[in-house]
Structures are given as structure tokens and as C-alpha cells.
């Protein structure tokens, strides 16, 4: 297979996932409702209290983390449930399956994260990032990092017996460096701090994505093929 073929099958897998998602809207609907429910719990518990902006940064990441945990395992678990894993194994190379799924998960996470942030901006009055540019950079880069780490874990747990509970257990320790630097960079974006003080966090997020995606591409074959 040459590069154009791989590219074509990546796009085909991405297209297949998007189409089947649009047909059922299973993941998107469930996830958007999940976000609404979680946000209302937060709004109830805040009950009009004014909270420090740094606390909001933490709350935002809690919602983003759990939304990702409830949604991102779907892509591989659905293949197992529908019994289409074998077909996919025959038709496409592991690399293109991985990258196709990664792109789909990334698109889903970015959509989800943007939706979460929009709801936060609408419903929490004092949720006003002082540096919108940096804030959106962190949220979107964080979304890419979350999906890049969880895609291979989703592939692992799709083959395990306890699919639902294991996903957050396996993901959390791997995601923690990105959560920590994501929260710290979001805090900086929420407050009137120098843009450069978030630089170390952004570098960490960037290198995290590179390391995890590289390792996943190398390892995915062993997860995917029996």
C-alpha cells in the first residue's frame, strides 16, 4: 500500500464513522445531554455563589474529562458490538484504522469541548476568560491531547470484558499530565497573567500529543490484530 491508498482509507474510515454517527446520532445526542446534565449539577451546587476564576478552570476540565470518558470509548466498542471488527481488519491497514478513528475522536472531542465552553460562557455569569485567544488554544489543544491518548485505550478496552468501568481507570493516569498542565494553562488564561507564563504548559501539551500519537501508531497493530 502506498501513501495515497493509506490516505484514502483513512478518509474512508473517518467518513464511515461520521456517516454512521449522523445516521443514529447515538454518541452526539447522548454526549450533549451528558454535558447539559453535568452542567446543571454544577449550577445547582454553585447556586448563585461567586467562585474564584481558578475554580472555574478546574470545573471546566472536570466536565471535559468526564464527557470524554463517557464518549470516546464508543468508536471501538461499537465496532465490537456490531461485529464489524473483522471486516475492518480485513479491509484496512492498522495504521489507517488508528488514524481514521483518531481523527473522528478528535473531531468529536473538539465539538464537545466547544459546546461545553459555550454552555459555561452562557450560564455561568463570572466565567469570563481574560485572554480568550490563549483560552481557546488551551481548550482545543487539550481536546486533541485527550483524544490522542484515549483512542488507543478505547481500542484496548474494546477487547476486554469489563468495557465500561475500565476506560476511565486506564485513561486517568495516562491523561493526568495533560490534565494538570491543561488546568494550569486555563487558570492562566482566566486571569490577567502574562501569556508567556502558560508557555511551559503549552509545550508540555504539544510534546505529550507527539509522544502519545507516535507510541500509539507503533503499538496499535498489536492491539488491533489478534
Amino acid at each position: 500500500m502506498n501513501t495515497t491508498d493509506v490516505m484514502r482509507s483513512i478518509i474512508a474510515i473517518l467518513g464511515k464513522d461520521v456517516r454512521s454517527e449522523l445516521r443514529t446520532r447515538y454518541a452526539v445526542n447522548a454526549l450533549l445531554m451528558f454535558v447539559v446534565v453535568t452542567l446543571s449539577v454544577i449550577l445547582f451546587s454553585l447556586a448563585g455563589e461567586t467562585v474564584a476564576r481558578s475554580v472555574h478552570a478546574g470545573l471546566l476540565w472536570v466536565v471535559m474529562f468526564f464527557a470524554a470518558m463517557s464518549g470516546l470509548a464508543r468508536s471501538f466498542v461499537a465496532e465490537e458490538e456490531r461485529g464489524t471488527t473483522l471486516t475492518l481488519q480485513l479491509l484496512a491497514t492498522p495504521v489507517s484504522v488508528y488514524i481514521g478513528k483518531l481523527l473522528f475522536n478528535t473531531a468529536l472531542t473538539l465539538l464537545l469541548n466547544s459546546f461545553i465552553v459555550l454552555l459555561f460562557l452562557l450560564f455561568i455569569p463570572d466565567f469570563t476568560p481574560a485572554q480568550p485567544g490563549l483560552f481557546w488554544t488551551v481548550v482545543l489543544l487539550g481536546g486533541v491531547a485527550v483524544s490522542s491518548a484515549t483512542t488507543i485505550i478505547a481500542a484496548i478496552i474494546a477487547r476486554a470484558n469489563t468495557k465500561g468501568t475500565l476506560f476511565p481507570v486506564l485513561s486517568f493516569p495516562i491523561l493526568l499530565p495533560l490534565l494538570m498542565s491543561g488546568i494550569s494553562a486555563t487558570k492562566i488564561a482566566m486571569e490577567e497573567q502574562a501569556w508567556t507564563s502558560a508557555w511551559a504548559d503549552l509545550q508540555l501539551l504539544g510534546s505529550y500529543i507527539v509522544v502519545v500519537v507516535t507510541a500509539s501508531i507503533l503499538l496499535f497493530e498489536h492491539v488491533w490484530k489478534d
Partner: protein
Amino acid sequence: MWWKLLLFFWIAAFSAIGILTPIAGTLGDVAMMGQMGSAKEIPVKFEIADKSTAAVGADGAAFVMRGIDAQGRSADFAFASNPSDFDAATGYIVQGRYDAAAHRVIVSKVLSTNPGMTFPFIPGLEERAKIILFHVPVSWMTVIAFLVSMWYGIRYLRKKDLEDDAKSAISAGLGLLFCILATTTGSVWAKFNWGSFWNWDPRETSIFVLLLVYGAYFALRSALDIEEKRASLSAVYGILAFVTVPFFIFIMPRILPGLHPGSADDTNSGPVVSSGGMNATMRIVLYSMLLGHIVLYAWLMRLRVSVTRLAMRKADGA
């Protein structure tokens, strides 16, 4: 057999040396404590400069002798009375505080006569500085055991030999054991030095994450029935976990402010072992302890691997 006995004595001997070697400061240390306005008495080690000049002091009550410390500085040491073993003594470790006006050290107690090896006095740590001899070797062994686990994971994925998978799991188990030891020794120590068992210092966070990673690793192993599947999926997870571990172990604790030496806001020592800020005696004991722990790990590894090998052979019916 002989090397197991040797290992036992090696670790026991260096633990004893680590625990029993007295902490002793210099005149610089005791003067600094005095300047900080602290009335606290600290251990000071000195050699008696000239025995013939030792005499009852001008104020009548004290027995004064001139002493030279390890850095070659000298001062008077005022004892409450003539120490009984004075004739045989060439030096002492005494507990005392510095009296700047009279340029003398007021001695309250003789801790040891003719002292041998000592560890340096570190303000704020004192005897507690010895944690480094136990806590650091087990922490290093945690990382080494997990590195070995990842190494056998990679080997399994290349050669598909189930024995490599068993070795990988065994090493991860030993790593978890060392990790628990590092966490508990550190946590108990933190209670006495930093005031609480857990402070979420970046290194504490990192060891907590290591516990979670390998907890998750064994949770994953128990969720998979088929041996080959369990082997390859847990190897993948082990490798994936190990590539993110450096972010915690080596990067985060150095770029974030924290309580451990080598944190971003650490101005006095920096990374203690690698920067050469450590006392030579202590360094030798630390490296000997580390060597002992490596051999201990290799022994446990060998033991568990041969047990597993026998179990596998029995299962095969051979």
C-alpha cells in the same frame, strides 16, 4: 546461596551504618543557627587543638578547650565540667549552641568521644536527612522495575513468547511493591518534616500516578481471559504508560515548584545526587544501598520467574 547471605548482610550493614552514623555539624553550622536567633542546640564535631591549654575558664564555672572543626576553623568549647574521658579523647561530638559575644560554643552534652564517620548537619533536616538512604533507592527501583517491565513487554510484542509476558507482569508487581514502599516511607517522613502525610507536591503526585498506572495495569490483566490477548494488551498499556511516566517523574517535578529537592523554586541544593551537592560519605552509603536494592530486585525477579516457569511447565503437562 553465598550471594544471598552476602546480600542480606550488605543491606543490613548499610542500613545500620545509615541509621547509626551520627549527624554532626561544623562551627559554621552552629554559628549560623546562632545568627538566625535560634536557641536550638545542634551537634558539633571537633578535634581538640591543644590539650595542654584546656583549663577551667575565666568565668570559673566552665571547662574550656580549643577545638578545630572539619573545615579547619577553630573556637573555644565551654563544657560545664571536665569530661571524665578527657585524657583519652582527641575529639568530641557535642551538643551545643554558639555564644557570639564570647566566641565560644556552650556545650550542654557530650554525644560521642573520638567520633568516626559522620554525616553533615543540614538545617531543617538534621537526623531526618537520612531518609535519602532508604527512600531514594526504593524510588529508583520503582522506575527501574517498571522500565524492565516495559522492556519485557516490548520483547513479548516482538517474539510472542508468553514467558516474556510473565516476566513483564512480575517486574511490574515488584515495581508496585517498591512504589508502595517509596510512598509510605516518604509519607511518614513528610508528616515529621513537612507537617502532613500528604502535600500534593509534584513528586508525591507523580508517585500517586505511578500507583494508579500499575493498579490499572493489573486491573486490565484481570479483565482479560485469553492469555495471548492479555499479554499483548497489557504490554501495549505498559509501554503507553511508561512513555507518559517521564512527564511525571522527570519533567513535572523540575518545572513546578514543590517541596522535594530539585523543584523549580529550590534555591539551595538542586537535584541532590546529580548536582554533586551531596556529602561524599553519604553518597557512598546511598550507592551501596542502591546496589543492594538492585541485587535484591534481581533475586526476587529470578525467584518469581522460576516459580512461574515451573507453573507453566506443570500446566503444559510436561
